[in-house]
């Protein structure tokens, strides 16, 4: 790469607010991540609960949501939930579509959070649950006091992977009329096609810079929090 190319790239980057676009992806990730964690934990509880109908509802949810392309889910939220059912989440269009996309991302990733927590539950030895029952604890105290605390620690690594997937999948919110990084990249390339490789690398490295620390942090956490057995 000669300096002329870098100058051109610099000029192009100066014309757009790339950081603002990435900030949208980060916000999408944070909000959707929190909702997905709550919803996914609830689903995991349903799937290990004694009530057959709740178990069935939990596993049906996971089967349906996990096997549908995210693009379709996001379009459903915007065109279906809002367009047809009149489900409005914000005073103006940008807020509304942002929140609808957050919900779409959240319900999709909740299915994966549920599976991650279930795999965490599987790391808890049977004896723990048996001991809890032996001292007279019912389902809810057993889950809350004995199983879940250990399950979450065992689920840190898979939950970290869900978070990484969520960060990358936040680009699909473009299908929900949200102006974020992938849309901006496309616009920039179409307007300045001579520096296409440079533009791509800037955006790709942007994601690397966000994703890699998250990966390192969750790996470290999962080692530190691992329950010694």
């Amino acid at each position, binding site marked *: 790469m000669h300096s002329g190319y870098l100058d051109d790239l610099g000029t192009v980057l100066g014309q757009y607010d790339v950081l603002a676009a990435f900030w949208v992806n980060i916000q999408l990730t944070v909000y959707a991540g929190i909702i997905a964690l709550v919803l996914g934990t609830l689903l995991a509880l349903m799937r290990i609960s004694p009530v057959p109908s709740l178990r069935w509802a939990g596993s049906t949810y996971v089967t349906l949501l996990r096997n549908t392309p995210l693009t379709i889910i996001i*379009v459903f939220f*915007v*065109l279906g939930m*809002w*367009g*047809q059912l*009149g489900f409005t989440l914000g005073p*103006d*269009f*940008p807020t509304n*579509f942002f929140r609808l996309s957050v919900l779409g991302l959240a319900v999709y990733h909740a299915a994966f959070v549920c599976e991650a927590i279930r795999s965490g539950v599987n790391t808890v030895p049977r004896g723990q649950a048996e001991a809890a029952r032996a001292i007279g604890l019912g389902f809810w105290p057993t889950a809350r006091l004995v199983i879940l605390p250990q399950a979450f620690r065992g689920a840190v690594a898979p939950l970290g992977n869900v978070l990484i997937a969520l960060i990358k999948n936040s680009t699909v919110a*473009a*299908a929900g*009329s949200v102006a974020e990084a992938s*849309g901006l990249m*496309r*616009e920039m390339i*179409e307007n300045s096609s001579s520096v296409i490789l440079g533009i791509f690398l800037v955006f790709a490295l942007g994601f690397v810079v966000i994703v890699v620390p998250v990966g390192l942090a969750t790996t470290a956490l999962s080692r530190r929090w691992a329950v010694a057995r």
Partner: protein
Amino acid sequence: MRRGLLAPALLAAGALALGGCSSDDDSSSDDNSSGGSGKIRIGIKFDQPGLGFQDGSSYTGFDVDVATYVAGKLGYDEGDIEFVQSPSAQRESMLSGGQVDMIFATYSITDDRKKVVSFAGPYFVAGQDLLVAADDTSITGPEDLEGKNLCSVTGSTSAQRIKDDYAQGTQLLEQPGYSECVTALVAGQVDAVTTDDIILAGLASLPANKGKVKVVGNPFSEENYGVGLPKDSDKCEDINTAIKAMIDDGTWQELLDKNVGASGYKANEELNPPTPAACS
């Protein structure tokens, strides 16, 4: 160092595998010579009802019919025509790469594009317009969109033009395609859809949308739809002669009515039918 060679080698192998797989679908595209062979490949849109639409195994729309007429005048029967999908982003590369002989795909003639490809025509002058609910009388032009909700396709410049030039307080919904926009319009969640008038008329002519939406009919830009040709093409004069003949013998009007007339849309008469520009 070994690794350094591997990635390119792998990519090359992948490209070979891909080439091998796709070539049996369109064996004719391997032969890049155009004309004279008795076959002609024409690029159209596959997803725009009323203009260029793949309807099962056949193709319908104004662009398709005009292309068939012009090809007929150039000496090609309907059976000699092979229609190829030409998405907007690929039109120039398909022409210069020789994958199509000409393109009829809502292709506006612009100076930028003229640097890479040649144009015959125009055969139609479209203009940016609005599609609104059939019973909506409050919107007659882009200025009325202040405080209203507008839908357009992701990354299109037409919605931005409205925000910049006419109504800053317009709220914008961006969808992957115009059919999604029409769905939101019919449901009452947006007040208008914007793009070229004839594309809107094509959408409004669909049986499912009939009576629900209408084209406002107050175009506020000028898009000259031309026939895209490779830079060195010698067909321009012949195509222009064919377009003139089509307009003079009434076929042009007939094709327009047949494809987008059901919506009640009338082409802008000040500019239509156009006179083909001189070939360069």
